[in-house]
């Protein structure tokens, strides 16, 4: 179960509103490579993991991703809370505003709402770990793209932090895959699904 610390994992103190940046960054909130997808992916995959170390890692990374989800929400909240009607009209933010005012609603930058199709839980440890490694790289690439777009140092600081975490997570999932390999027969890693098959012919 979860405990909550009433602070952000890394500080977010943005002084300038910027609807354009907010529209791009919202993909890291509700988009397919975003923090909500990441946390839901890992926290759901952990149930069917055959090895305690892997399930434990998924729990801990999934929990950290919830903290990142909170940070991205805070970034968008601070970028939009003082927007004038003029800024809303001129920036293209009006389409989001009409449905949500300046509420925080998880969607991708293109408008597709967060949904479970954005992640997979295959129930096969090797497959799920590959999905996780890919997810971390997709998130890292998205943060690269955001860093090219955004110039405000108050925004760049938490974004750089979040990007660095993705690289660390990638390494950990890679190590979880090595642990998985050590538990399987290297002559054929794909002989059976250790989460499901009870006997091996």
């Amino acid at each position, binding site marked *: 179960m979860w405990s909550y*610390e*009433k602070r952000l*994992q890394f500080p977010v103190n943005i002084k300038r509103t910027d609807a354009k940046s907010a529209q791009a960054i919202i993909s890291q909130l509700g988009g397919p490579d975003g923090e909500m997808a990441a946390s839901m992916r890992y926290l759901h995959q952990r149930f069917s993991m055959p090895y305690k170390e892997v399930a434990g890692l998924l729990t*801990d990374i999934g929990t950290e991703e919830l903290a990142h989800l909170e940070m991205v929400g805070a970034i968008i909240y601070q970028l939009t809370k003082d927007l004038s009607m003029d800024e809303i009209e001129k920036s293209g933010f009006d389409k989001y505003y009409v449905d949500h005012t300046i509420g925080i609603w998880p969607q991708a930058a293109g408008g597709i709402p967060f949904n479970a199709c954005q992640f997979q839980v295959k129930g096969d440890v090797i497959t799920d770990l590959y999905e996780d490694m890919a997810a971390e790289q997709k998130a890292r690439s998205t943060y690269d793209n955001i860093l090219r777009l955004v110039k405000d140092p108050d925004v760049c600081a938490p974004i750089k932090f979040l990007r660095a975490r993705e690289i660390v*997570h990638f390494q*950990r999932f890679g190590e979880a895959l090595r*642990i998985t390999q050590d538990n399987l027969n290297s002559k054929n890693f794909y002989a059976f699904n250790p989460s499901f098959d009870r006997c091996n012919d």
Partner: protein
Amino acid sequence: MSHKEQMFRDIGIVDFVLVDLILYLDTHPFDVDAMEYFNHYSKIKNQMMAEFAQKYFPLTGDLAESSKEWSWGMAPLPWEGVC
């Protein structure tokens, strides 16, 4: 930075060290050097959390000490920025 702001930031830093060590230890469960670092910073964090809650406001619900006013509820919201 005020003492409160400095302490708040220090808690963030120490907790971050613990998080990075937790993930490392999850895949390296027998690394004694990492465990030593972890134990060291874990003690520091617990002390700082208790001290901060006592001086300013609780950062977790279970550290709330309230007499006239519910201190957990009165704690500032994290997304508003600035401690």
